[in-house]
């Protein structure tokens, strides 16, 4: 199988990640719960991973790097910490359900969705300026759209939020490990990210970078202040109740080291070149609509397209039969599809990783070029 669904999870991992996961299962027990060697090895691994993440994402204090089970968990903590019933929240029109569903669940929260068109960052900035001027208690912006690879102008939006004193949450789910993510420079309240995408860690890992105080989502044992019934007031303990996912964190540390060794710019350039290969191919064809941009500053290695005739899920099923893994549908991001005008049928999403090659991308192009438009779902599943 040729895997092009890295926006969901990077399936191919560095060999060191698998070794680290196995090593943790064999040698680590619960961190912060004992003074014996297996617990202390877990302690050191947690601290080392925090320190390396803090360096990569410019977090002044490693204790402000909090481990979560995924980006959704991290975003829920961030939103719970900032958004109260009746709060006004400015958000981009490209947010994932991991942002919009927790916001929807806050009673009376008023959402100002900035629905600027794809690849028009100046319009997005103008929209956020208007939303903040109208009054906002918090702002949320994804760094890169998980559907379209669109790189949103987070730096400018962060500057607007700083000027107006509005706390900002950045969803770095698609950018961590690919683009510079800088908690200190942005002055963001929180930055959330998964460990299992661009950081090449295992599923079940996520990270919340905390620029300000946070409210716990879970309460329980932390291995500290055990006589007290309130959660500790200090990070990371305040947000890390329960036993840590040590195989996950050990694997994440190996993934982070892989990313730092290769370098963000090199990974980004590689994925962008693969995306460009497919975009150039699809632009020449009449049987596909494609949502791309040739400006490297505006699009990462994620590309959405759709057959002019037929539906996306059927095309994905046909591609899967031919040995290609791409994701069709709505990608848990109906806001993004509504903003881009693709809510009717969704799209097929191509998303590359450091492990994909130009030959694999060329093979996908050849497959997409075969035999004209795909059949519809109805034709495909009719029983004769």
């Amino acid at each position, binding site marked *: 199988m040729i895997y092009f669904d890295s926006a969901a999870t990077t399936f191919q991992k560095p060999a060191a990640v698998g070794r680290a996961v196995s090593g943790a299962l064999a040698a680590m027990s619960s961190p912060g719960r004992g003074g014996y060697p297996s617990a202390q090895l877990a*302690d050191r691994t*947690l601290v080392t991973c925090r320190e390396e993440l803090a360096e990569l994402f410019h977090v002044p204090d490693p204790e402000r790097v909090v481990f979560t089970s995924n980006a959704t968990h991290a975003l829920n903590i961030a939103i719970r910490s900032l958004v109260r019933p009746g709060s006004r929240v400015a958000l981009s029109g490209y947010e994932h359900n991991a942002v919009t569903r927790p916001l929807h669940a806050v009673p009376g929260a008023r959402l100002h969705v900035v629905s600027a068109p794809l690849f028009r960052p100046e319009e997005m900035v103008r929209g956020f300026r208007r939303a903040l001027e109208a009054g906002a208690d918090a702002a949320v912006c994804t760094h890169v759209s998980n559907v379209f690879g669109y790189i949103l102008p987070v730096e400018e939006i962060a500057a607007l939020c700083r000027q107006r004193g509005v706390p900002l949450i950045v969803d770095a789910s698609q950018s961590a490990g690919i683009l510079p993510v800088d908690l200190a420079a942005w002055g963001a309240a929180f930055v959330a990210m998964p460990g299992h995408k661009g950081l090449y860690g295992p599923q079940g890992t996520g990270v919340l970078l905390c620029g300000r105080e946070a409210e716990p989502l879970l309460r329980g044992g932390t291995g500290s202040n055990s006589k*007290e019934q309130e959660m500790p007031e*200090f990070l990371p303990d305040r947000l890390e109740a329960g036993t840590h996912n040590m195989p996950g964190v050990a694997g994440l540390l190996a993934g982070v080291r892989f990313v730092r060794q290769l370098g963000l710019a090199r990974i980004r350039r590689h994925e962008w070149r693969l995306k460009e290969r497919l975009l150039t191919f699809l632009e020449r064809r009449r049987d596909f609509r494609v949502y791309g941009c040739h400006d490297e500053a505006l699009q990462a290695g994620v590309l959405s397209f759709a057959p002019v005739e037929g539906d996306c899920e059927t095309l994905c099923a046909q591609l899967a039969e031919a040995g290609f893994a791409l994701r069709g549908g709505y990608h848990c991001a109906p806001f993004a599809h509504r903003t881009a005008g693709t809510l009717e049928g969704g799209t097929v999403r191509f998303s590359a990783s450091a492990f994909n090659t130009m030959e694999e991308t060329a093979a996908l192009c050849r497959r997409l070029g075969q035999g004209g438009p795909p059949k519809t779902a109805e034709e495909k599943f009719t029983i004769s």
Partner: protein
Amino acid sequence: MNHVLILCRSVTQAQRGGMLLSRSGITNRIFRSPAGLTERGCSYAIRISPEALRYSMELLRRNGILPVKVVAQGPDGYAEVNAP
């Protein structure tokens, strides 16, 4: 052998502190604080020699690691000492 314990608020601070001291050539060991030394329940401590206390405290503070308490082992057990 006499030693000093630097009590930390969390295992994260203790491990960070221990790794920092090790990188600076100060022999240390991390372990759970003896019961009775902490009012708030479980905590971790960095064990060092009394001679290393002054420099260790300087290094820890410079790196944002703020110990909760420092105790020294004496003939009657542990006694709190003023951190230099």
